[in-house]
């Protein structure tokens, strides 16, 4: 039961985007289409799993005062190696995910989870935390991208949607649209939680 909670907390209760508000910069950048959101979500989930487990394993060796530089170095090394390996051995995957991987180095969710969770918990719990956070991140990105791509381009995953295709509002796929959808979705989540609490 406890283990299950580690996994599911990232999806709703501690959603990395809507609750912890980490990784907003890549979030706004990639949510202009569902395809990009999914690519970024998957890439970030795998990196998060790797970094969380590794940092959890060495958590007792790292001197507390210098843990942040150590984590940054580990994450940057890890991400760069993955980036190079994908580009070398799977050019097709690199063409679709490649642009997100450099963005992940600066994604605060990875460092945030290393600091807030993996440095204090065992590898198994850290892996579950990473999977949950990764899924939560992917879902949140997809929610944002759903509205932005539908309203801004009249498409979903690149396929035209009849009614919305006629006159899409370009602003939605640009930065201001991203902020608007982001704000409204946070408000919606808070509203649903507040309603749940009063009942």
């Amino acid at each position, binding site marked *: 039961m406890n283990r299950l909670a580690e996994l599911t907390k990232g999806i709703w209760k501690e959603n990395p985007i809507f609750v912890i508000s980490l990784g907003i910069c890549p979030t706004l950048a990639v949510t202009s289409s569902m395809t990009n959101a999914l690519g970024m979500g998957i890439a970030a989930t795998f990196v998060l799993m790797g970094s969380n487990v590794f940092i959890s394993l060495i958590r007792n060796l790292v*001197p507390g005062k210098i843990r942040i530089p150590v984590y940054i*170095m580990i994450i940057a090394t890890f991400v760069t*190696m993955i980036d190079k390996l994908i580009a*070398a051995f799977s050019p097709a995957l690199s063409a679709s995910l490649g642009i997100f991987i450099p963005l992940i180095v600066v994604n605060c969710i990875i460092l945030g989870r290393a600091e807030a969770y993996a440095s204090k918990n065992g590898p198994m719990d850290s892996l579950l935390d990473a999977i949950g956070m990764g899924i939560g991140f992917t879902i949140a990105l997809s929610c944002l991208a759903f509205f932005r791509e539908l309203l801004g381009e009249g498409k979903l995953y690149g396929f035209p949607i009849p009614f919305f295709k006629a006159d899409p509002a370009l602003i939605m796929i*640009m930065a201001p649209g991203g902020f608007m959808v982001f704000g409204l979705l946070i408000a919606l989540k808070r509203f649903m939680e507040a309603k749940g609490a009063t009942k």
Partner: protein
Amino acid sequence: MKDMLHMGLFLFVIAAVAGVLLAYTESVTAPLILENQRKAEELARREVLPNAEKFNESQFTDTVASQTYSYSTGLTGNGEIAGVVVKVAPKGYAGPIEMVVGIDKTGKINGYKILAQKETPGLGTKLSEPVFAEPFKKLISEKATPVLLVKKDGGDVDGITAATISSRAFCKGVNEALDLFKKVQPQLTAIPQALPLPATPADTASQTSITGGNQ
């Protein structure tokens, strides 16, 4: 004091391990990545000049401006010159738009392909999508001498709504390629097909290194 030594040493070890790992990864992957980029470019060249079966790296030195340009000459199966493929990188909205333009031997544009771009997703990136590519293809196949400027600037090219800078950059790139073709045209007809310069490894290396910065 002991604490400081310990921390320093720890950071040193981590950095050393990271350095070794990265250096090793780089040494293993760098040649493969170059090879992949070369393949992608080769595919792009075939796409923009379908008549050609073989490509040779060629160079042209402009004696007036004392500048050297590289392009590839496409040869058909029986060794005739099919046309040239020129790589250009006009400055777009958010960085260079790297693209190849295929021009047949009569100086007609055969096709183009965007290799790398950093334009606004959903706006400038439409350069590589049918919504822009189809009307452009139609224009170059129907009109003998189209004016390659966006309509806003008095040309024939139907630019992308809300991405005029990207559209203008595209036109600039195509015109650059055409200009170079005009310069090398005498060279093409004067030199018989007997001079297929083999692409030396050095040539390929320098060629691909240009495509390197596509992030």
